């Protein structure tokens, strides 16, 4: 169906980008923050995977004789107060950090988004009930719900993950419901209803895609908060149990030695920062790439 005139003159017939799928990776590879974010996230995931098969030193091996060593050829980043190798601890710690972040945010995101979308779609008493329930959950700090959970099922990583996840649900409920309500008020939703779509399809096809960018950004923020919350819970003895390392625990252990060996706090802190930064950049990039309005050449 090509236009004979344009074909004859040899002009480019259209400047319209094609479907999102075909150009996605091409655009993704040119998106700077997406590439950088993906690289950092891969670095963290890679460390966790690597630790399953190899660490420079056994991560749990205590060697009091060589405690608090500065960086050297054998211990690249030195050792901690028990003489454990920092690099090995960071590699192994990446596992629990990733687990906590992904699972806790996963719990919060999936249930929070479902409840939030339901509240926005149904309105009325459903909305009231969901919002009051989330207020109720929100009123309990993560630490308190972790203590309650620990009292019932005992402390451990699972307990802290669940507690953090539950604490995140109301945050996602609120963000989702607020932005979903704004989308429901838009004219294209009315137009979609006028073309015969029901509440469920409108939610999936119209509301969710339009609030995705907000959710992505919120999820990366929550991921960072989950890592820090896990550190706090570990510090209280409610999270990962020693000797299993996590970045949060390493940070807390370093706190008492801040004046003797400040670098002990810097390493896990930097690791957390890298993970959070990577996720943030990745989320930012993903938002840009998924939004057709921003899909121009950058």
């Amino acid at each position, binding site marked *: 169906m090509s236009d004979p005139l344009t074909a004859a003159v040899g002009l480019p017939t*259209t400047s319209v980008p094609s479907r999102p799928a075909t150009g996605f990776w091409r655009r993704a590879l040119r998106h700077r923050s997406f590439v950088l974010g993906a690289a950092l996230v891969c670095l963290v995931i890679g460390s966790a995977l690597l630790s399953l098969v190899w660490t420079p030193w056994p991560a749990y091996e205590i060697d009091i004789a060589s405690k608090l060593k500065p960086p050297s050829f054998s211990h690249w980043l030195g050792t901690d107060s028990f003489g454990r190798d920092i690099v090995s601890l960071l590699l192994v710690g990446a596992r629990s950090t990733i687990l906590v972040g992904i699972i806790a945010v996963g719990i919060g995101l999936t249930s929070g988004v479902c409840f939030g979308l339901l509240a926005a779609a149904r309105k009325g008493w459903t909305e009231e009930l969901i919002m009051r329930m989330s207020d109720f959950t929100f009123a309990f700090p993560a630490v308190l719900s972790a203590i309650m959970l620990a009292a019932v099922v005992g402390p451990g990583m699972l307990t802290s993950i669940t507690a953090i996840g539950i604490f995140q649900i109301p945050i996602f409920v609120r963000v989702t419901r607020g932005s979903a309500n704004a989308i429901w008020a*838009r004219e*294209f939703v*009315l*137009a979609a209803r*006028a*073309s*015969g*779509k029901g509440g469920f399809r409108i939610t999936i096809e119209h509301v969710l895609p*339009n609030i995705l960018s907000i959710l992505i950004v919120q999820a990366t923020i929550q991921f960072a908060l989950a890592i820090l919350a896990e550190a706090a819970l570990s510090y209280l003895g409610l999270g990962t149990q020693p000797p299993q390392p996590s970045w949060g625990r390493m940070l807390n252990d370093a706190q008492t030695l801040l004046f003797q060996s400040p670098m002990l706090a810097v390493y896990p802190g930097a690791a957390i920062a890298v993970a959070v930064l990577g996720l943030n950049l990745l989320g930012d990039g993903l938002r840009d790439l998924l939004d057709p309005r921003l899909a121009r050449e950058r």
Partner: protein
Amino acid sequence: MGNPANAPLIDVDNLGVRLNTSRGPAQAVRGISFSLKRGETLGLVGESGCGKSVTALALMGLLPDNAVLGGSVRLDGRQLIKLSDADYCKLRGNRISMIFQEPMTALNPMHTIGQQVAEPLRRHKNYSAGQARTEAIALLDRVGLPDAAKRVDAYPHQFSGGQRQRVTIAMALACEPDLLIADEPTTALDVTIQGQILDLIADLVEERGMSMILISHDLGVIAENVERMMVMYGGTVVESGPTDEVFRRMGHPYTQGLFRARPRFGARKGTRLKTITGTVPELADLPSGCTFADRCPLVVDGCRAALPPVVEVGHGHGVRCIRTDVSMADRVGAVSA
């Protein structure tokens, strides 16, 4: 379906809508009745807030849950008021469609226009993805979107306002509805585009034998595009009749005021536009009698006593006014619109 050709397609009888607003219940629509046969066109004209759009949404079953509907709306004899939402979903976009005022916001920015036009076909007609896409391209081509086959995968932000309105028209017409409701379809568009879009709608309505309800605040748009018209004010129909007849012999002081208030071509420089004094009454506390009484130049005590009855002043031409003797005697005779 299967009905004799002279039976009404849509029959609205004494439709009333009460909305619960923060200022208390508001009677947004009071006792509207009309019926349309297949292929007929009806215009609704009036100021903002007079109940035009609420009427349209009531026909579509799209009013908020707290709205209370009264009267009856029948499509091919089937009662639509109190129809379950699931059943209404099967009608919307299939037998009744709507075009909205704002083409800039009536399309979802996240989906291609092809997906959005194909969507009703897939749902109501069970087309396969390929069939629906082919049909969508044909529809976009029909509504005059240039290069439809290539642009079917483009996103709404890549189109101008006029082009987007063509896309929403294609969406509304996808399933060949029996009734098209166009709610101010050209208000948000440039004047130069308005005529083209209205011509397109008129062509399509004729070509497909649809009935149409055209909503506008623009008397010119109504005059040129519909066979019959209803003038609404404060939730009631104050005047209704065949378009030619109403324009020739306007009976209601409000219709006359609206007509005088339009800008005129060739008016002398410095001539001020006529206005209707006062403002539209709040729907939450309408006056008990004629809703126009407070702004009417011909008002007498009787106007405020009770809602005036409809007075038949010509063939199918009704005026809700007790002073038609004065208003129509006063009228400056035939006006060529």
